[in-house]
């Protein structure tokens, strides 16, 4: 067996440094979110979330080291095996899982629970990367595309069965990876357009305005484009099709769905439509963040968070604590760190010399991006409330380990990018 050389020099220390900065800042904020002024608690107190989070962080360190020690070929070789084991476990979760907070997404091992869906992300990423990297794969081949969509659809469907909608939605971000690997932007554009149409139909009470809007766009395209008959016919057919879709969505939403179901969908888009449900969380979280001002109230000085008015304080809404105690400057630092981190991942992904590593790298970047964008977006009211964690910040062992594994497998692949070339 070939010995792995000391790779510490090849690991991308820039990424590791940002990772450590994010994890440390996250840990401090978990403490701040549960801190009680009068109890004189220590950040290491194991009865607090912060104490437990430190244990999770130490375990993450061990996991990260283990990943860099394992032979790099392991990840590609066993990608499919891991994938099928994952499917099997996800299938079992609704049967043997224990219920936490209304959904059955946890498996208990003794007194200890893990959330398999958090590990589904890196395993699915490995599987699709392996498929994209396989010999003879062509992104413009319909069959190959279908396999990719099945690869992300299976774990997504099983996670939806656990009623964990947030985590299931993360898998849609793989479409961006396909796009980077050569898929035609048609699907991406259609997807964004149909989502926009669906949302507009919900928000605008009378669909006639939408039809008029489409008419105007159509006329504009005809007047200002090339005036070829075939193009005009195609555009007109397209516009009619879209109008048809609007009518049918309108019908489904307004006649098939019951009023309370309609409200739930509307609330997903417009939190103000349901001031007692989603709206409550968003209003409270905005108040907490807004009260931080430019420079924040100072570490452990947040009061909104102490009122317990913001729900899920140390998990999904952890960004409130940052916003309240460190103000806009704190938000700036965290967002800048995340954007730098994401750009660095893209840079690393681009310097890979084989498709497997590059596709995996993009998967990593896209997954982190999705979590970052959706989590902070919902906290500040730009996005519907979807319960997914902010990577490295939200309290919780499974999610921290899931993200650590996701990242460090990529760093390991990156460290060996030269060898990959030799192997081929």
């Amino acid at each position, binding site marked *: 067996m070939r010995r792995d050389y000391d790779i510490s020099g090849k690991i991308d220390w820039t990424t590791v440094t940002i990772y450590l900065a994010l994890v440390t800042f996250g840990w401090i904020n978990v403490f701040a979110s549960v801190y*009680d*002024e*009068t*109890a004189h608690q220590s950040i290491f107190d194991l009865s607090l979330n912060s104490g437990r989070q430190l244990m999770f962080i130490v375990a993450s360190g061990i996991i990260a080291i283990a990943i860099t020690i394992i032979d790099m070929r392991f990840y590609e070789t066993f990608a499919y095996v891991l994938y099928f084991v994952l499917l099997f476990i996800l299938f079992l979760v609704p049967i043997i899982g224990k219920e*936490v*907070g*209304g959904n059955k997404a946890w498996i208990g091992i003794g007194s200890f629970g893990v959330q398999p869906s958090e590990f589904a992300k890196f395993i699915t990423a490995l599987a699709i990367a392996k498929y994209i990297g396989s010999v003879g794969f062509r992104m413009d081949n319909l069959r190959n595309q279908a396999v990719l969509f099945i690869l992300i659809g299976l774990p997504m469907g099983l996670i939806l069965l656990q009623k964990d909608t947030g985590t299931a939605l993360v898998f849609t971000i793989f479409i*961006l990876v396909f*796009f*980077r*690997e*050569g898929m035609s932007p048609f699907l991406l554009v259609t997807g964004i357009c149909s989502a926009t149409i669906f949302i507009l139909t919900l928000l605008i009470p009378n669909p006639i305005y939408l039809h008029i809007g489409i008419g105007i766009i159509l006329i504009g395209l005809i007047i200002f484009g090339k005036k070829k008959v075939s193009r005009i016919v195609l555009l007109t057919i397209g516009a009619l099709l879209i109008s048809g879709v609007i009518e049918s969505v309108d019908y489904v939403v307004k006649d098939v769905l019951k009023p309370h179901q309609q409200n739930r969908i509307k609330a997903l888009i417009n939190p103000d439509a349901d*001031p*007692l449900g989603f*709206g*409550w969380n968003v*209003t409270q979280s*905005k*108040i*907490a*963040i*807004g*009260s*931080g*001002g*430019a420079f924040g109230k100072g570490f452990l000085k947040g*009061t*909104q968070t*102490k*009122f*317990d*008015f913001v*729900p899920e304080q140390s998990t999904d809404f952890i960004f409130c604590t940052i*916003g309240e105690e460190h*103000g*806009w400057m704190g*938000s*700036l630092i965290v*967002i*800048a760190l*995340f*954007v730098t981190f*994401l*750009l660095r991942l*893209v840079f690393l992904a*681009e310097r890979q010399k084989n498709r497997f590593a590059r596709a995996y790298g*993009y998967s990593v*970047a896209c997954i982190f*991006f999705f979590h*970052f*964008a959706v989590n*902070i*977006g919902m906290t*500040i009211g*730009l996005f519907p409330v979807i319960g997914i964690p902010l990577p490295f910040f939200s309290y919780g062992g499974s999610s921290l380990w899931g993200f650590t594994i996701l990242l460090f497998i990529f760093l390991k692949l990156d460290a060996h990018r030269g060898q990959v070339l030799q192997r081929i």
Partner: protein
Amino acid sequence: MNEGRKEIFQIVFVLVGIIFLVKLFFVQVADKRYAELADSNSILREVEYPFRGLIKDRYGKLIVYNTPEYDLDVVVNDIKGLDSSKFCQVFNLTREELRKKFKELKAHKKEYSPVKPMLFIDRLSNEDFAKVQDRLDEFPGFFIQARTTRSYTTSGLANALGYVSEISKDDLKKDEAKFYKQGDYIGQSGIEAFYEKQLRGKRGLRFKLRDVKGIEKGSYQDGKYDTLSVPGEDLISSIDLELQLYGEKLMNGKAGSIVAIEPSTGEILALVSGPSYDPNLLTGRNYSSNFKLISSDSMKPLFNRPLMAQYRPGSIFKIVQALTALQEKVITPETRIPCIRKGMPGGIMDCHGSHTNEDLRGGITNSCNPYFYNVLRRMLNQGKANDPYSDTRIGLAEWDKHINSFGFGTQLGIDLPNEKNGLVPTPAYYDRAYNNRPWKFSNIYSIAIGEGENLVVPLQMANFAATVANHGYYYTPHLIKAVGKEGLPLPQFRERHYTTIDSSYFKVAIDAMQQVVEEGTGRNAWLPDVVVCGKTGTVQMEPIATDHSVFIAFAPRDNPKIAISVYVENAGQGALAGAMIASLMIEKYLFGATRRQYVEDFILTKKYLEF
């Protein structure tokens, strides 16, 4: 290929970051409203407690409603220059008491917080509130928190209604949805607990402006950030309050229960548990002291006998035996069995009354013990196996199946907590009881007449009477016939449950039950103008204590309107207290009044409680 796609990713990532920072700049720096909202000195956050749903009886009479109540809360960090002598004078406290109050506040370390509102004095009376209200602005940091407390229009129905009190620490831990906060009230038993989700409603939050002196100046930004509380759903009970109170009057001074059910729906008309308590005692200011008193009472008034007291059913079980034996075809209605009076094994089967060789109807009418001893033997020993041990085992398993189908042996699923199972002995049960030594019919025959190991709760007895009245099916008995605006009972109460007995066999049982009342042991339950079907039971307690008196009945025979079970502890023969109370209840419900003063007088003067 794929030129420029890398750049798209980079642009999107940076763009999202910039959008976030711009939005955050508006929320955090440019817009001062959020900071104002968070400042508890200028803006008061006022939690608005929702009204708990009302409970009415089947005719719309109000039973449970809400009255306002005021707590004095304090935010310790907001206290400024407290003039303690003035405070003591306004709130009628001594200095010592005030000091104690503050000590108590800080004693609960885990819950204590100087920035959160903490309960300081609970449940100010209306007079106190009026007096205090105007002077509250002299004491910054203190404020009144209004909430509602439960009130009852009646002194009855306590055990079915349950009570509401502050949520316990355990319940708070179990509340994963984080709906409740410390100090919140929650239904602790009865309907209040079972329908907690429907009754509780949803809290609201208001932001109110305050000036420097802490005086309220109206709502903030026209209430744009307020969330209104949502009142809980009202419940319509199936209880006939008048009948209920009459039943409680009859049970006065007795231990036991009355359960009356409308057979065609499973709606409970009356659910009497004796002895009981006045529900008004467990509400308002004296809750704690009264609760201590009631819960330590030796007669256990908090023990809800209709569903928690597991009794031997006694001879009313003969009806179940008869139906089971008919279904298994081990007897016919014409089967005659000679009554040998005394000398049966164990003495428990000794008989009474004048009869010698009865058929099934006669056996039931005269409640003949040897008849049913023989019926059960034929049931359990059908010769399906050669040795008597295995044969009994097979027969008993078969018997269990039929008995269980009437809802005996498991919770029926009434809409109240803490319902007990009762017990229908299974082969496995006897294996345990006999330590895995063999057992056969001669060991277990006393279940033939509802003695021995059988245990039944009064609710199951009434449900059984309803099942017979319906010729073989029942709806799960329930107390709430309509929830909220939907106006329907919970879905599980709209579903028929069929027994394993053919409906054709029920006619024989009903004939016999009519005969019981007309010429048999249940003559005290006979009523003019209506055909009552019933069965007596006398549960043997001699020589330790007086026997329990049991009666089940339904009326009218055709198109029954009410099915009932009466269980009176230590009241002797079922033919007396049991049959009389049952008939009075039926009469009251069907005719609105009772016409036999002597029966009522007899019951009202009897007291069977042994102190």
